[in-house]
C-alpha cells in the first residue's frame, strides 16, 4: 500500500469537498482499489491532536514511509517570513515549516488546487499574507520549496490545479503515480497533469454553435456564446470540464457563466472584471488558443454575417425560443 498524507493550509477546503464528490466508484473505494492508504486527512481521519503529531514525527524521523504528500491551500509565509498566518494547530510550528520538512521525505509531492500550485485567490490584491504555491509563485517557478526542488522520486511538485479541482483529476493523478510511474512528459509547462490539461474548456462546450456564428450572450443567463462580451476564457483555458463534466452533468459554461480559467496561475487577478471581455477596437483582446488574429477577425465577421435567425434570437434568450428546423426526406 502507498501511504498518503494530506495537509491543508491557506485555502477554503473546497478541493477536499470536491474530492468527496468522486463517483463510480466513491473516493474511499477508489483509493483502496488503487492501493493507497490514507495515513491522515484532516477532514476524514479518526486521528486527532497527539495522534496526528505522532504520525508527522514518525514520517520525519524515517520510521514511517511517506509515498504521497498532498497539500491543499496556499502556503502563507507572512508576516515578515514568520509563517504566523498559519501555525499548524496544537504544534506551535508554522505550516510552511511542516511542509518543507515533510516534502523532503515524500516520494511524490502534490499541490491540490490552484492555491497550493500557484498561490491562487489568497495572493490576490496586495498578497497580504505573502502566500505562495509550493513550487510556483503565479507563473514564476520558485515558490515555497524553490525551483530546484525534487521529491524522492526525482519529480518536481505535481500541480493538480483548479479552483476547485475536479475529483477525477486528483484520483486519476494518484492512480497514475501508483500504477504508471510517470515521467516529466506526462505534465505540462506548469507541471499540471496532461491527462486533463491537454484539452480546452471550449472542447465540448454546448455553446459551440453560437461560437461558430458569433451569436453572443450579453447578460447573465442568455444562451449565446460568452466569449465576445461575458469574459469567457473557455477557448484558452486548459481543462476538460466540458467533456468530463462536474457533479454528474454540469460545467461553468453550461450553467450560464464564464470560464475564468481557474486552472491557470494568476487567474485570480485578470486585471479587468471577470465577467466582461476586454476589447480593443471591438475585438476581444484574448483570442482562442493557436488562432491567428487576422483569421479570427476575418472568420468572425464572415460568420456573423451568416448567423441564422434561430441562433441570433436564442443567443439573447434564457430559454430556447426556436428549435432547429426539421429536415424531411420527402418534401411535399
Amino acid at each position: 500500500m502507498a501511504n498518503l498524507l494530506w495537509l491543508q493550509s491557506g485555502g477554503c477546503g473546497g478541493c477536499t469537498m470536491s474530492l468527496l464528490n468522486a463517483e463510480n466508484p466513491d473516493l474511499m473505494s477508489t483509493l483502496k482499489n488503487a492501493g493507497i492508504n490514507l495515513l491522515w486527512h484532516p477532514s476524514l481521519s479518526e486521528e486527532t491532536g497527539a495522534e496526528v503529531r505522532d504520525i508527522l514525527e514518525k514520517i520525519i524521523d524515517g520510521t514511517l514511509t511517506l509515498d504521497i504528500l498532498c497539500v491543499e491551500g496556499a502556503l502563507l509565509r507572512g508576516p515578515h517570513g514568520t509563517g504566523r498566518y498559519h501555525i499548524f494547530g496544537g504544534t506551535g510550528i508554522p505550516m510552511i515549516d511542516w511542509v518543507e520538512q515533510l516534502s523532503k521525505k515524500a516520494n511524490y509531492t502534490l499541490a491540490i488546487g490552484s492555491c497550493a500550485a500557484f498561490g491562487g485567490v489568497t495572493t490576490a490584491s496586495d498578497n497580504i499574507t505573502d502566500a505562495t504555491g509550493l513550487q510556483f509563485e503565479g507563473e514564476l517557478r520558485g515558490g515555497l520549496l524553490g525551483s530546484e526542488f525534487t521529491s524522492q522520486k526525482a519529480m518536481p511538485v505535481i500541480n493538480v490545479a483548479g479552483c476547485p479541482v475536479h475529483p477525477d483529476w486528483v484520483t486519476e493523478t494518484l492512480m497514475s503515480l501508483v500504477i504508471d510511474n510517470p515521467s516529466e512528459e506526462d505534465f505540462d509547462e506548469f507541471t499540471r497533469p496532461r491527462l486533463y490539461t491537454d484539452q480546452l474548456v471550449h472542447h465540448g462546450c454546448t455553446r459551440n454553435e453560437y461560437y461558430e456564428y458569433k451569436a453572443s450572450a450579453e447578460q447573465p443567463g442568455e444562451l449565446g456564446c460568452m466569449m465576445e462580451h461575458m469574459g469567457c476564457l473557455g477557448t484558452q483555458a486548459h481543462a476538460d470540464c466540458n467533456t468530463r463534466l462536474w457533479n454528474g452533468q454540469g460545467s461553468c459554461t453550461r450553467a450560464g457563466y464564464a470560464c475564468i480559467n481557474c486552472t491557470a496561475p494568476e487567474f485570480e487577478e485578470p486585471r479587468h472584471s471577470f465577467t466582461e471581455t476586454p476589447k480593443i477596437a471591438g475585438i476581444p483582446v484574448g483570442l482562442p488558443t493557436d488562432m491567428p488574429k487576422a483569421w479570427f477577425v476575418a472568420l468572425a465577421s464572415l460568420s456573423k454575417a451568416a448567423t441564422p435567425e434561430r441562433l441570433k434570437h436564442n443567443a439573447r434568450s434564457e430559454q430556447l425560443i426556436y428549435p432547429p428546423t426539421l429536415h424531411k426526406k420527402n418534401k411535399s
Partner: protein
Amino acid sequence: MSRLLVGPFNRVEGDLDIALEVENNRVTSAKVNSTLYRGFEQILIGKRAIDALVYTPRICGICSISQSIACARALADLSNIAITANGERSHNLLLANESLTDLLTHFYLFFMPDFARDIYREKSWYDATKKRFKAVEGEATKTVLPARAKFLHVMGVMAGRWPHTLCIQPGGSSKAISRHERLRLLATLADFRSFLENTLFGDNLDNINAIQSISDFEHWINQEDYTQSDLRWFMHLSRDLELSTFGRTDSQLLSYGNFTEDKASLIKRGIWTPANGLQNLPLDKITEDISHSWMDGDAKKALHPTVGATDVSLQSSEKPDAYSWCKAPRLDGDVFETGALARAVISGNPLFNELIHSQGANVNTRVIARLLELAKIVPEMQRWATELDITEPYCNNKPMLADGQGVGLTEAARGSLGHWIEVKDNHISRYQIIAPTTWNFSPRDIDNKPGALEKSLEGAPVQNGEKDPVSVQHIVRSFDPCMVCTVH
C-alpha cells in the same frame, strides 16, 4: 491544575487548537484559537463590486453557495435589485442542496466517528458502532458518499459545479432550468429522500416531521431497536453517554432566517434567550470585538460591520492577551450561539421549544436539530423544484449602482452568515464578513466574556491520562465548525 493544548483538531473544516485548563478531571477554562488567517476582507478592497461574486465563494469550499448568496443579497440590497421568483427558487434549492449535504456529511463523516474510538471499547454498543461509523472504513461511509455525490447532481444541473459557482446573481440565477432538467431535479430529490428514509430515519419523512413533542420523539425512538436507523442509533448513544450534559452554553440563540419566498422566510429571523424568549433581531447592535484577536485597531472599541475594519501585521501577531485570528462578534454585548438548533427554536418548532426549555443548548440538542432539519427541508426542495416555471425569467439583470451600502444575510448549515459591503465608484471600499463559526468559536471580548464554544467546554470531563479528551472532541464537533469561514 494542569494545562492541555489540544490540536491539530481534525474533522472541523480547517485548523483549530484549544488550550484547556483542567482541575479535578474537569475543564475549568478554554481558549479557542483559529490558527489560519487569509485576509479576504482586505483582498476585496479595490475590486469591482460585481467581482465579489468570484472571490467570496472562495472564502469557503464548504459554505461556498452560502457565501455567494450572502454576497448576491448584499449587492441586490445596495442596488435595490428585486430577485425573480424563479431566481428565488433556484437560490433556495442551491442553498438547501449545500446545507443538507453538509448536515449529512457532518453527521456521518465528522461527528459519529468519535464514538468508534477505542476509549469506548467496554460499551455494549461499541462493536456495532465501530463497524458502522469508524472513520474512513465504516459501513456508513460506503453508502453515504455515493448518496451525497448523487444529491449534489442538483448542483451539476443548477450551478454547473460545486463548490464555487458563478451562477448566483443579485437578480436570480444565470442558469434557466429547461423542461427536462426540472424533471431530472425531481428524480434526484426523490432518490435522496428515499436514502434518508431508508438509512438515517428508518421511517418516512412525513412521520418524522409529525414529531411535535419530547414524548412523541421518545415514543418514536422506542418503536424500534437502535440499530434500525442512524437517528435512533445516535439517540441510543446520547442517552447512554448523557450527551445532553455535554457542551452547554447560555442558550442565547441567533438566526438570520433563510429560504425566502415572496419576502416571507421558511426559517425565521430572530433571537431567543432563556430570559426573554423569542425577540426581534436588532441588526444595528451587532459588533465585532478585537481585544483578544491578533488584529490591529482599538481594542476598547467594538465596531459594527458597516464601519468595521480588518488589519493585521507583524505587530498585531505579537499582541499581548490575543490568542486567535478570530474576532469576537457580540449582539448588544452578549454572546450568541448560531446553527440548526437556533433555527429550529426561533422558527417555533414545538419539539425544540420543549427541548430548549428542558435541556438548553448542548451536544444532544444540536445534533437532533441538525438531523431533523434534513427531514424538514427535503420536501420543501421537492416543492421548489416542482414550482420552477420555464415560461418565467430566472435573472433580473437590472444594472448595479456605482455607490452605496448593502447587507446580505443568510443561514449556512452551521449558522448565521452576514456580508456588509460598501461601494464607491463601482469599486469595493469596505467588505466585512461575520461567519457562523466566528460567532460560535469567538475568543474572549474586552469584558473577558468567553465565546460560545469556550463557555460550553467549561465542565467537560477529562479522564486520567487523556491527551485529547474525547468529551472535548464531541463538544467541539457538535457545533459543526467551519474553521476556514471563521477567520476568512
